[in-house]
């Protein structure tokens, strides 16, 4: 069928008069009346009742759709009808990405030969698979029946893949309240300072502030403010994009703040990712005071101070096992 889309017409051809053309329809009014005969008739009658049957040949093969004769030998079939399917397996298929008027579906679909379970021949029908990636030889499919059946092959609107995957939405919503320790730390962050906790028993300063020591378990009584400068102990350059994360590449670093005994994980910025070094001295870059809230987002990132790098080979004060 020729395309009815206009093609590019060369400029110098525009002067040529269009050829004479008229639409002509050849359609027998009301459609042909076609006698089914007993075999096809049985098939269509069963279809109307939402069953699919084949017929057995003398050679014990089941033909679907049934015929009055065995196409291999010309012998008459046995007259024994066998219910098949309704599930079947795609043997081969062709994808129709742009359906035409008169096609069975108005969205992309596959023409497929389908071997129904129990049949020895395959039947051509439509598979509504959503997309061509879902189609494959061996795909298991089942009929989708029309609401009203009339005894026609289109009583099966199409075949659809069997259910193999479902989506299971899971959503948990919480109201999160920071505890006393985190609240105290975030108050400090709101005010532009890092609040730590000092364990007198272990002689260690924990940042963020906490009220119990993870090493000895005792209560931490004393707050210690630590500097907003520190040293990059180690870091990763993250190249995997995530909508919730900073734009890649970004550097997540373990930063030991001056006066603290445990590093914090934070973003390093203000320097190309590949110029970040272990031992690099950095300072917190705070958002302007009027934009600050009780959140770590008050700190844009840590940027280099320009000081000489710290010597990491000496180890961290109080650190190491």
């Amino acid at each position, binding site marked *: 069928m020729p395309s009815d889309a206009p093609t590019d017409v060369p400029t110098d051809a525009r002067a040529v008069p269009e050829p004479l053309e008229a639409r002509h329809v050849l359609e027998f009014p009301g459609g042909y009346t076609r006698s089914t005969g007993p075999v096809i008739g049985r098939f269509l009658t069963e279809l109307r009742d939402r069953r699919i049957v084949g017929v057995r040949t003398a050679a014990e093969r089941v033909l679907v759709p049934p015929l009055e004769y065995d196409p291999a030998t010309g012998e008459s079939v046995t007259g024994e009808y066998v219910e098949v399917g309704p599930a079947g397996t795609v043997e081969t298929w062709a994808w129709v990405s742009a359906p035409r008027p008169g096609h069975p579906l108005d969205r992309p679909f596959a023409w497929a030969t389908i071997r129904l379970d129990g049949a020895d021949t395959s039947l051509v029908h439509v598979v509504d698979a959503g997309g061509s990636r879902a189609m494959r030889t061996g795909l298991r499919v089942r009929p989708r029946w029309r609401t009203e059946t009339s005894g026609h092959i289109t009583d099966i609107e199409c075949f659809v893949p069997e259910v*193999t*995957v479902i989506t*299971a939405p*899971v959503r948990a919503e919480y109201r*999160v309240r*920071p505890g006393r320790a*985190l609240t105290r730390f*975030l108050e400090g962050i709101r005010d532009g300072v890092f609040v730590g906790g000092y364990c007198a028993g*272990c002689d*260690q*300063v*924990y940042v963020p502030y*906490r009220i119990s020591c*993870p*090493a000895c378990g005792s209560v931490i009584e004393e707050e210690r403010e630590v500097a907003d400068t520190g040293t990059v*102990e*180690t*870091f*990763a*350059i*993250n*190249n*995997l994009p*995530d909508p*919730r*994360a*900073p734009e890649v*590449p*970004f550097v*997540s*670093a*373990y930063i030991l703040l001056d006066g603290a*005994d*445990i590093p914090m*994980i*934070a*973003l390093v910025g203000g320097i190309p990712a590949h110029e970040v070094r*272990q031992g690099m001295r950095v300072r917190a870059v705070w958002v302007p005071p009027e934009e600050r809230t*009780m*959140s*770590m*987002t008050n*700190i844009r990132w840590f940027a280099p101070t320009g000081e000489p790098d710290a010597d*990491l080979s000496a180890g*961290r004060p*109080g*650190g*190491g*096992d």
Partner: protein
Amino acid sequence: MGNRCAVIGVGQTRYTTKRRDVSIAGLVREAAIRALDDAGLTFADIDAVVIGKAPDLFEGVMMPEAYLADALGAAGKPMMRVHTAGSVGGSTALVGASLVQGGVHDRVLVVAFEKQSESNATWALSTHLPFGASLVVGAGGYFAPHIREYMRRSGAPDHIGALVAVKDRRNALKNPYAHLRIPGIDRAMVESTPMLWEPIRYLETCPSSDGACAIVLSSEKAVTGTPAWIHGTAMRSEPLMRAGRDTVSPRAGKDCAADVYRQAGISDPRRDIDVAEVYVPFSWYEPMWLENLGFAPENEGWKLTEAGCTALDGDIPWNASGGVLSSNPIGASGLIRFAEAALQVRGMAGEHQVDGAATALGHAYGGGAQFFAMWIVGSEKP
């Protein structure tokens, strides 16, 4: 250590990106039935079931052990679930073993699984709580800085990680259950892949796998088939946020190794152990754990890797199965290490069998390298 206990059955599924053909229940049953078949037993012969998996957020099934009890033949029997993050597979085996060692049960079925394709592990591991800064980095982003620090301290050459990646994937070609199969993999191929979380390259990281592993544990009197005898078991944990914690070589790992070696009478692991299945999800963790587990002096683990000592034909093969670098159904990954150690001393490891392996180490770690589980199994009774 209690009563004698042996592994008498091992079952694994073929690890792959997506097992779309089975439900979670079908997946764990596949491994469990294979383990029972290996032991010549049925569910009726089992006294108790212990199941392990990583966070529920991975599949979005809350308390899957409740749903899986019937699928694992646990009706009318004790059933429990273990969770210690990535080390859970190992911990699950040890909890199961303790039920036999303690004389509570004669036969315990241990199963661990993950169906990672149902969601995304990086998403599940990076739940961004309010008040913090969002640094979605997943496991790779978490461990990369510790690897960088190891490289600095040890002065190891940059290519060591690639050597491990190649060695483990070559071993995987000999393991019919392994997920990643990369024929012709070599150092140049690994080094040509992009840095995901520098210094970790794409081919230096583990895959996301669907899969399950199961073992049958037995008391001495209930042994059927070929036993792998347990010679030592140990678990340790440590606080993630302790000041002075050595994230490169965590103390919990050293303590866990010392404990399990003492039980098994091992004084020099490199000499006394024939094959080790160690949890190495990123290639550089081989040299790091070689040191943490006492196979090499501090800062010298990489020399063993470089010299080929940990290869299948080396003096102390590590991860003959291909390891976590080749198959990673997270919750099962630890149990696979323990099960592969058992297969080696049973002489049933197939193409990746280490000849004459009589003593094997199974190891798993999890969380921020804060949970450790280890066992030593042997072909002889302890």
